[in-house]
């Protein structure tokens, strides 16, 4: 392989010598850089790639969001401050947790208010979301369920209404598959479903998972949508 400049055929001993020569003498010559074809039109290749990336990820999100607001926003029920859609109270820290019906996996119907007298960790999930599945596995396998139980608390997992309209495993399959069998037949570990109002009340922004820590009087003392497992240390402290 020769270190020969293709513009003036001058020979060089090293790559760096050739490069220095090229930068000094021929940098502006046509055809030296493939990228120049784009630069001539006033747009750099970097800009093209970044715009392509934004177009691929950002624009569909914004369009769908705007489209949804524009087309359906006016048709949606009016949402007053402090209330979820359809006039149901929003779950708020410092206030009594709105009462919701829960149908447990064994078919029993209970209400959230019937659990008063115990601290409750109320975890709303979608069974198809990977982070929820991973969290369930970590809670069961890393001893976090046991720690919560040791504090005398109940742990209630509620599937968000109709899994937020996406196909996913049933809540029983979710708990048995990802809970690795640990979650079966424990009276303090409840799995159930609720209605749309419960989802609107406790998860008005439709996060794929959200948890509430409720004290024994039924008052919400904390909530977060940033992942139960990410905050498990503080949750155990709070109960």
């Amino acid at each position, binding site marked *: *392989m*020769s270190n*020969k400049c*293709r513009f003036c055929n001058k020979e060089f001993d090293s*790559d*760096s010598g*050739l*490069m*220095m*020569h*090229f*930068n000094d003498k*021929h940098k502006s010559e046509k055809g*030296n*850089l*493939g*990228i120049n074809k784009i630069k001539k039109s006033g747009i*750099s*290749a*970097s800009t093209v*790639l*970044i715009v*392509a*990336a934004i177009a*691929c*990820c950002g624009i569909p*999100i*914004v369009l*769908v*969001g*705007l489209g*949804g*607001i524009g087309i*359906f*926003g006016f048709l*949606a*029920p009016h*949402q007053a401050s402090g209330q*979820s*859609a359809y006039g149901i109270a929003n779950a708020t820290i410092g206030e009594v947790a709105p009462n919701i019906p829960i149908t447990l996996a064994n078919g029993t119907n209970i209400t959230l208010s019937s659990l008063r007298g115990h601290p409750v960790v109320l975890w709303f999930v979608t069974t*198809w*979301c*990977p*982070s*929820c599945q*991973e*969290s369930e596995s*970590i809670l069961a396998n890393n001893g976090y369920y046991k720690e919560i139980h040791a504090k005398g608390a109940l742990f209630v997992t509620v599937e968000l209404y109709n899994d*937020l*309209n*996406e196909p996913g495993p049933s809540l029983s399959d979710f708990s048995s598959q990802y809970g690795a069998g640990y979650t079966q037949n424990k009276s303090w570990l409840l799995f159930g479903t609720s209605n749309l109002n419960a989802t*609107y009340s406790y998860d*008005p*922004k*439709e*996060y*794929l998972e959200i948890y509430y820590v409720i004290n024994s009087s039924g008052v919400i003392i904390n909530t977060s949508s*940033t*992942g139960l497992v*990410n905050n498990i240390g503080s949750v155990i402290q709070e109960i």
Partner: protein
Amino acid sequence: MSLLKYERIVMRMVLKDRRHVLLLVLLSAIFTAIYLVLLPSLPNGTINPMFIEFITPMQIIFSFIFGIMIGLMITLNIYAAKLKIRTSKGGPVAGVLIGTLVNALCCTPIIPSILAFLGASTPVLFAYSPHIQAFFEQNYPYFYILSFLIFLAAFHYTAKNISCCKRG
């Protein structure tokens, strides 16, 4: 023009120097390790080695691909900078952004928060937000491939710039 002409020329030029080879291996190893933690962690919205056990085979493959591509791009850019050759920086940045962000778009509160910020009501969010998140969850491998293609394009431009005068 023969296939991958610029790329072959540049790889021969750069890998002639043992320091560049070492740099490439070191950077590739570091970035692969970072991706092995990053890709399974991002759906949870936090970077935590605890989530490595949930990495998918697809994520393992792309962790190596992204790690090696980033190592390669940095090595080439360092080589080009020494020779005062201008290279494309936007490509690798775009590749990194797409490859990593797509996992976070699935399960973290990013998309519901954006839609809520835009003024969407709860029923509108209920109708759209989970669909968008599920789309990113189901189709993340395509975004990985897009990211890889952007890395390849950036590699091609960089190789073309560096091999401007070289004859094989």
